[in-house]
């Protein structure tokens, strides 16, 4: 064994929605002045996405850039590229006040797909997941049952859920239970 491993090593469950641990995903937390042109340029260069506005996530292929708070972004890039991306950001922002840090291993990522995605999440998070309220391109940081989590729903209808690595098993169990066959609510399908 000489490869990095994710918390649940790709565990998956088929219910009325499909729940899969997405494996390792490169993640960079960037804190800084989001209005600064230099900061914008540095992160946009790292991800190849547009700059997200408040509570937005911009996705481009495997990469994504998410607005986390007024002074925080989360950049998602291929796992193997994180070190280089951070080095590039550091170089671009030399002399600026900012913080770019690798958090790839501090997280677990789940993909929830199928028609019941919104209902699975709505069983766990106090968020309006109806299609007109929570649209693709939005990211929501909230809680999932008893732990912090963030998620968004893509154009294809699948959800990406991010939580802390130490609670990966708990969150997987939550999603599994929420997607149990026969427990469809029939409201957000």
């Amino acid at each position: 064994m000489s490869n990095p491993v994710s918390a649940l090593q790709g565990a998956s469950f088929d219910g009325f929605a499909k729940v899969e641990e997405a494996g390792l995903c490169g993640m960079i937390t960037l804190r800084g002045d989001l209005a600064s042109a230099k900061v914008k340029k540095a992160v946009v260069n790292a991800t190849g996405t547009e700059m997200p506005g408040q509570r937005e996530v911009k996705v481009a292929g495997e990469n994504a850039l998410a607005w986390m708070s007024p002074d925080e972004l989360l950049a998602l890039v291929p796992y193997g590229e994180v070190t280089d991306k951070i080095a590039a950001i550091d170089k671009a922002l030399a002399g600026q006040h900012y913080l770019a840090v690798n958090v790839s291993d501090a997280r677990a990522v789940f993909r929830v797909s199928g028609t019941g995605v919104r209902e699975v999440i709505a069983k766990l998070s106090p968020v309006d997941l109806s299609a007109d309220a929570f649209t693709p391109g939005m990211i929501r940081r909230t809680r999932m049952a008893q732990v912090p989590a963030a998620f968004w729903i893509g154009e294809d209808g699948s959800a990406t859920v991010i939580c802390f690595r130490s609670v990966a098993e708990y969150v997987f169990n939550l999603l599994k239970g929420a997607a149990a066959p026969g427990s469809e609510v029939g409201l957000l399908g």
Partner: protein
Amino acid sequence: MSTRLATGGRLLNKDRAYQFTFNGKRLSGYEGDTLASALLANDQMLIGRSFKYHRPRGVVASGAEEPNGIVGLGEGAKFEPNQRVTTTELFDGLTCASQNHWPSLEFDVGAINTKLSRFLPAGFYYKTFISPRPFWKHVYEPIIRKSAGLGKAPKDRDQDTYEHFYAFFDVVVIGGGVAGLQAALAAGQAGAKVLLMEQTAHWGGRAVVDCHGVNEGEENVNGTPVDKFVDEIVAELEKLDNVTMRTRMMGAGVYDHGYLIGYERVTDHQPELDGPRHRLWRIRAGQIVTATGAIERPLSFAGNDIPGVLLASAIRDYAVNYGVSVGDRTVVVTNNDDAYRTAITLKSLGLDVPVILDARVLPEDSALMAQAKALGIRVMMGHGVAAVKGGKRVTGVEVCSQAGEGAVLETIDCDAVAMSGGWSPVVHLWSHCGGKLLWNNDFAMFQPDVDNPPRGADGEGFVIPAGSANGALDLSGILADADAAGKAAAKATGHKPGKGKAPSVQGITEAPMAAVWLMPQGAGVKKRMKAWLDYQNDVKVSDVQLAAREGFESVEHAKRYTTLGMATDQGKLSNINGLAILSDALNQPIPQTGTTTFRPPYTPISLSAIAGEARDERFQPIRKTPIHAWHEENGAFFEPVGQWRRPYCYHKPGESNHDAVKREINQTRESLGLLDASTLGKIIVKGPDAGKFLDMLYTNMMSTLKPGRCRYGLMCNENGFLMDDGVVARIDEDTFLCHTTTGGAESIHGHMEEWLQTEWWDWKVYTANVTEQYAQIAVVGPKARKTLEKLTDADISADALPFMAWADITIGDGIPARAYRISFSGELSYEIAVPASRGREFWDLLLAVGAEDGITPYGTEGLHVMRAEKGFIMIGDETDGTVIPQDLNMQWAISKKKDDYLGKRAQERSHMADPNRWKLVGLETVDGSVLPDGAYCVGEGTNENGQKNVQGRVTSTYYSPTLDKGIAMGLVHNGPDRMGEVIDFPKVDGAVVKAKIVDPIFYDKDGEKQNV
């Protein structure tokens, strides 16, 4: 007898028969039955026994208000006590059993209480079991607990699943009767996003039943019969995409800011289905329309609790909805017109109604009275029931004049009594969150005071009552009110209601009702002692009157003294009657007495639904390090540390905890130990002001730390008390990495952000909690360096990486790592952080290369003992939120050069600077034993409570394998000045342990072992 009629039963599917059992007896019913209707169809009138007197009890109602018909439902892992038969839908294979009797339902020894009822009045427990005092605990309470209570608690684990669901609507309409349907339609047509919920399985509520049998065409909506109207409006609602309709879902509670709990019984009626049994909807609503209907009130006459006496509306429901006649001959007793509908319905089904006893005296007949008379029913105005005859079921009624004292004028044989004392709007949901009530004298009922609704976040009302729940008791008024409510709700949520009118209703004008709170009006005490208010808890008219006489004049006091309304039905039938009796006894109007507080849930909901997903492995999050699986596979005995599970020690076969800890420590001190320290908090603090910031956070000076070096620091809150400690490493000029305790990772990060965001927001500092990014492993012991050198090419010698320094190194085939030369054990030690994704790999590598030196993973207990041997403090042991660094002789960690740090001013306060504070010392027992944890040291004299004065306490105590004796630390008055003194620690058993005050550093005082 009660039986199934040959025809009728509009909710039944008679093609589908269901078998079920009651007390082991095999019975049958139909799809569409409730358990109540199915039991009645099988002539099972007697269903249970009451709480106090063990009186025979049969169903009195047909819905959620039922106080009597409660059973234990299911068996084993499906068993649930106290289930209402009236709201339990029948399914094939249902099993149930009656409760609260011994040895059998038919013959119950406890029924002797009813004979003793004269001696068991309200407040009986309080008066009787008060003395002698000790008897309460040892004699009275055990007996009372055994004889009280209804159903038994389940013994087996609940095998069903439950869940929550968060949902958001503009308008939520509670109640799917005609009012709810109309309100939902009005709001839905205005474009609002609407949820309409109905607690039963059917739409339409009472209206369809109420119009049954009434002269053809006399009551209709838009010219069509009411049942057709319901079908049409349901169909219309189903066409609206913005309206969600759910049956079997009860509005359980209304809370602040439009929060609403919906309780959906998903598979109760079909237990064989997959999916959750109950779903708790946690709803946010812009506006809530409570179309919750009204509940009929019983009349208070002697024997009104005998099985066979039912609410008039219930008898009508059983007949029309389920094709069940409760009796062949039913006497109707009433104070209003509505009960005539029951008489008319029964007559139209070919059943006998010997008489209607109407307590009123009216100048002329109303339409319903005329219709009843036309059907040949005898009507006795101004009359009532003197007493019901019968034991386990009704055999007849004695008729008297309502105005008198109950002289029997006539005895009429019958096997059922249909009673109606008028209707009370269901105001529970309106009231839950503060909606006020008004007394309506015409109908003798409380109804919502619509000018005083519950108010939401914007200060505006967010609950609108509709239909009979708002006091509109006739169909025309109900639909008009509901239409207006739906439109108002839509408007309040930003929608434009249409101009359409409420459906036009042709209805019957009813004669006014008359308030009748006791029958007959002058009933003597013997009758009042048999006139039940609360059927389940056995509270009678006489009990409430007694409470008033004894001074329990507040309705809340009278309730608790008598237990009126405190049963599982929460007094849905009894409250208004009870407070009318109380008001009468106090000689004050009813509104002055007021109501008790309506609290959620409307009817009991399952605890499992409240727990939702939070059970078993999802009960609470268990945090796991990347090495957790190895711990599990290798005999770890876990202890909870916050939400983490950390190995306390690792058991080899046959080892006790003590053996394992001893082995782990000895091996670490002698050769090589390994600790999973991943749970320690790691927070990056970066920015031009990071040094200044950390100088404020820590008592130490952190800004002078050189990059590449580490410093142990203490953190206090503004009260001056220690809150956390840990090693800070300076990464570069702008960047620090702060280690926190395991429990402190999130809270200290929050603490930092709080000060940065709310006090020093102009300081240029960013923080990031990277605790879980790393697996951190402590490699500890004389062989630590040798072992690590096998895994890295980096120079980790004492010169290149001295004590309290750190370096980035590479482990194995490219694991990036940061090695901190820090020690919490007193041994040569490296704490090495690697990416979490490679933590297990690194751990395995260490085990492999350390094997030749007997590498030994150790747990938290080994860690604790070794730090105590070295005299290192532990946050949470030596500190408890009242301890300042000075108490721990840690002045060395408090910078004298700083003007300010969090806690500095507090530590200057007189009590903090008092030389008499208890201070940290080591403690060594004279006999070598281990001091009890938390033991207090006693001094001279006693305090004002006669207790011995104390002068210190144990904060940490262990058996030290290294020293082979008990060692401890403690806080002792003037401790450091009393070295060598022997002080006394009494144990719980009274024996005294003598301990000598010593230096808290027991092992390697000069630190030679860690500094090699």
